[in-house]
Structure formats: C-alpha cells, structure tokens
C-alpha cells in the first residue's frame, strides 16, 4: 500500500516538474528555432518544428548589422561597469561611516536612505527628467550612469547589514597600530566587504543589463542605444520579420545564459541575500 502511494507521489512530483520545465523552456525554444529559419520557412512551417538548417545564421547577421546590436552591447557594458564601480565605492563609503560612527545626524541619514527605497522610481521619472535635462545630461551615457548609481540604495543596505554583523575587533587592533580611519576603510573594510560586493555586482548587473525604461527615456539617440533599447527598436524596421527579431532575442539572452551557467552559485546566493536583507 505504502509503495503504491509513494510511486504515485513521485509520479506527480516528476510530472509537475516536467510541466514546469516545459513552461519555462518552450516559449524560448520556439524563438530559438525561429531564429534559424528563412523568411519563407518561418511563414510556411509550424512554429514548433525545428529549422531545416541549424547553420542558417543569416538572421543573426542581419540582427547584428542592421540592428546595430554591437553598439548596444558596448554601451550596456560601459554603463554597467562604471555605474557598478561607482555604486560599490559610494555604498561602501557611506556604509562604513554609518556603521562605525555614531554622530549627530547618523540616525537621520540612515532614515533618509531607507525611506528613499520606498519611493517608486518609475513614477518620479516625471520630475527626474527635469533634473537630468537641466544638468545637460539628456542624451548622454552619464544620465543612465548617474541614475543607476544615485538610486542604488539596495546596495547601501546590503553593505550596512554586512558591516553591522561584522566584529569591530579588526578595526580596533588597527587603531592600536595607529592606522588612520581611511587606512581602516581601505585595508580592512573593503576586503571584508568582498562577498557583499559580489552580491551587489550580481543584483545590479542583472538589473542594469535588463533595464529598459531609463535608457529608453534618457538616451533616445541611436548611437547611445543599449541592449534593451536596440532590441526594442527591432519592432519598427523588422515589423513583420519575426525570424530576425527572434535572432535578436536570442542574442540578448545568450550572455545571461552563459553567465548563469558559470556563476549559478553566486547568483542564487546574491538574490537570496539581497532579498532577505533588502
């Protein structure tokens, strides 16, 4: 009796997992198939069938050249790296003083940073747009860099949590040796925060690579397009050519997939930590 029950139990278990996996993969797989089909083939064959030739890279060529996706990758990587380096620098600095010193306004400052998390960024764009354009940053990469850095409060929060739970003994022994506060930050705090930096890098990296609205709104110039906006542009010129759009989609997904496979462990840890603490 028990055996029968556990057999049907594990059947349901694997069947449901199989359905879950199919639901996650099939929508992407179909696009992958389409990206290798010729225009004629896409029009006449069933969307679920595999392409005739897996070596038909014509759609990829067109996506790259006519869709100008290299520009998109260049801009995304540039903005992503600069913004994250700034975020990490600024986040560790503010977290260091807020966690190690108690001064007149430290409570108020922590409150200001935490409250800012609640402001839904997407709607304040109405007013942020005025700030960016009055700073003369409209249609420059700095618009995105500053906005990604300036609104990264989750990063500050992760660093703060990390430092609050770390012991002060290293700081104290360094002070006995006569180290300045800056030396303590550079030699003790920064190395101590390395795991938290990895978390921030992953969470922010994914967020910036995938962000659509900030580049869309602040950098409409074609030479400034990022990965998201270059894909979004496909709707116009390639309107009905879904086989080319499919190639564009796959081009955007591949870097994410490759990084996910290699950094799986860090990515899981990053998001679990970010969510528990953030």
């Amino acid at each position, binding site marked *: 009796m028990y055996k029968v029950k556990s057999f049907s*139990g594990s059947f349901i*278990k*694997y069947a449901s*997992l199989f359905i*879950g*996996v199919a*639901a996650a993969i*099939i*929508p992407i797989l*179909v696009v992958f198939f389409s990206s290798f089909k010729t225009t004629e083939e896409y029009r006449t064959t*069933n*969307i*679920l069938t595999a392409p005739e030739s897996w070596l038909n890279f014509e759609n990829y060529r067109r996506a790259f050249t006519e869709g100008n996706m290299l520009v998109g990758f260049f801009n995304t990587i540039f903005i992503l790296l600069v913004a994250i380096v700034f975020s990490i620098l*600024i*986040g560790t*600095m*503010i977290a*260091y*003083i807020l966690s190690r010193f108690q001064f007149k306004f430290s409570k108020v400052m922590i409150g*200001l940073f935490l409250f*800012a998390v*609640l402001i*839904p960024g*997407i*709607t*304040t*764009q*109405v*007013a*942020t747009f005025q*700030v960016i354009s009055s700073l003369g940053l409209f249609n420059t990469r700095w618009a995105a860099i*500053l906005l990604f850095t*300036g*609104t990264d*409060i989750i990063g*500050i929060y992760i660093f703060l949590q990390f430092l609050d739970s770390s012991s002060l003994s290293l700081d104290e022994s360094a002070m006995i040796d*006569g180290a*300045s*506060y*800056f*030396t303590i930050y550079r030699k003790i705090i920064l190395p101590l925060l390395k795991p938290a930096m990895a978390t921030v890098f992953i969470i922010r990296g*994914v967020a910036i690579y995938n962000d*659509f609205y900030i580049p869309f*709104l602040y950098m409409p110039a074609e030479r400034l397009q990022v*990965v*998201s*906006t270059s*894909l*979004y542009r*496909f709707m116009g010129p390639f309107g009905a050519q*879904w086989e080319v759009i499919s190639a564009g989609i796959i081009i*955007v997904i591949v870097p*994410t997939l490759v990084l*996910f496979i290699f950094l*799986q462990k860090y990515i*899981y840890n990053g*998001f*679990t930590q970010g*969510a*528990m603490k953030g």
Partner: protein
Amino acid sequence: MEKKPKEKKFNMMSLSDLSYKKQRSIIIIAFSIVPLLLLFTFSYYPLMQMFRYSFHEWNGLGPVENFVGLENYKTIFTDPEYFSVFRVSIYYFVATFFQMGFALYFATILSFDVKFKNFFKGVLFFPYLLNGVAIGFIFRVFYTGGGTLDSLMEMFGLGEYIQFWLRDRSIVNISLAATSVWRYMGFNFIIFLGAIQSVPREIYEAAEVDGANRWHQFRYIILPSIKRILQLNIILAISGAISVFEIPYIMTQGQNGTMTFVIQTLDTAFKFRKVGLASAMGIVLLIIVLLVTLVQKTWLKEKEA
C-alpha cells in the same frame, strides 16, 4: 628606537597623525557628501518638485506658474479615463497568488530528494534573469495567431478553445498577467527555497522518526519557516500590482484595455505633456505604496509580538 615618534611629527600632512577626533569629522564629511548629494539630487529633490508640479498645470517647458490647486487630483479620481486603470492592476494582483503558489509548490518539492535537482532549480529560476524586452517579444510570439500557444493547443487537440489572446479585450489582461507570472515566479521560488533550506536537516529527520508524513512536514515545518517571507510577499504584491509597467508597455503599448497606472502616468507626462497631472498621479501612487508599507510594518510587528 627613541627617534621614531619624532620622525613621525615632521610628516604633518599624514592623516594618521591627526587625532582620531579630527579624523573622524573629516572622514564623516568626506565619505557622506557624494552619497548624500546623489540621494538628494535623484530621490528627494525630484520628489519635492513632483509634489510642487502636482498643483500646477504645466507642459514641462518654461516656468511653473499656472497654479490650479487640487484640480489635478480631482481629475484622477473623477475622470474614469484615469481612474479605471486601477481595475487592470487587479489582474496582476490575483496573478501574484498563482505566482507564489507555484513558487511554494516547486520550492517544497525541490527541498526534498529529487533527481536532477540543480537542473530543475536552474530552469525554473532562469526566466527571472531575462531581459524584459526579450520576454515581451517572446510572449508576442507565444500568443500571436498560429503562434506557440495555438500550435501547442492544436497538438493536444484543444484547437477549438483557441482565442485571440492579445486582441480580445476580455482576455488580454489575463494573458499579460500570466506572462508576469512566468517572469517573476523564479524569484519567489528561489527565496522560498532558501528559507526552507535554512531549516536544519535534523528537524525533518526527527519528524520522520516521529511518523510525520510529507504533508505534516509541509504544514508544521516548512510553512512556519517561510511564514514571514510569505506575508511580506503578499503585501508587496499590492504595490507590485499597481506599479506594473514593462510587460504591458512592451507587448501591447497599453492599448486595448491594458493600460496600467504607471503607463498612464508616463504617457501623460511624456506623450501628452501634462506634467502637472502626471505628477499628481505619481504622488497618488507614492501614497498608496507608503500606506501599504505602513500596514505591512504594523501588521508584521503585531504578529511578532
């Protein structure tokens, strides 16, 4: 040996020679000035400005001078064109419960012994990492006439139930909300899985020795361990449902009855240049989010006490 302290004195500019008290003030100012500047420029100043704009009729250009009092707020709550969009968020709110249900189910299954555990975990989580524009396009292919969904249904002999998934006004929001579930389920799943796995293995083993079956383990060990996260997620679902933006914007441009509050706000500001009205909408959204957070904080505190 005696000389060392003396040598140090010559090096007056070195930070380490300043008293810790002076150093303290210097480092506090030096390290907080840039972060605070950014915080004010990109969070608080826009917020204050938005509040000011919300009482004016303004097209975003020139001076802000046409004061209209509460007129903009009145428009939001009386003009059905602006208020009806809240109806759309209900679809996404309901969808969140499906999302969390699936996430909890898969997290529970995968916290026990399963073959190819890492493969299942990875595949179920992966959609969350994907680019929003890519997801929007993938699901246009999915829902289009003769697309992925239609072909799958025909394969399983369900051809007669095929609908105009994105063109039928009574269905389109369900299609979009389902896309949202596909996109975000992996996130809840990985968080739940983390919480469940933080329960020490021995507790399950002890429960098994005491004759607890899987349902008992779920009910008395797993559920309590993720109760707090579950509550937090349910409350966050409210603000999430009102702030839905990317999926409907990319897939249907908010047309055909899929307009959400955020798309409406941004269109009002940047397409129709009614910055004053859009600002009032932004403030309304902010107030809703703050109220929800307040409820969450007090509710969770009560539960803890």
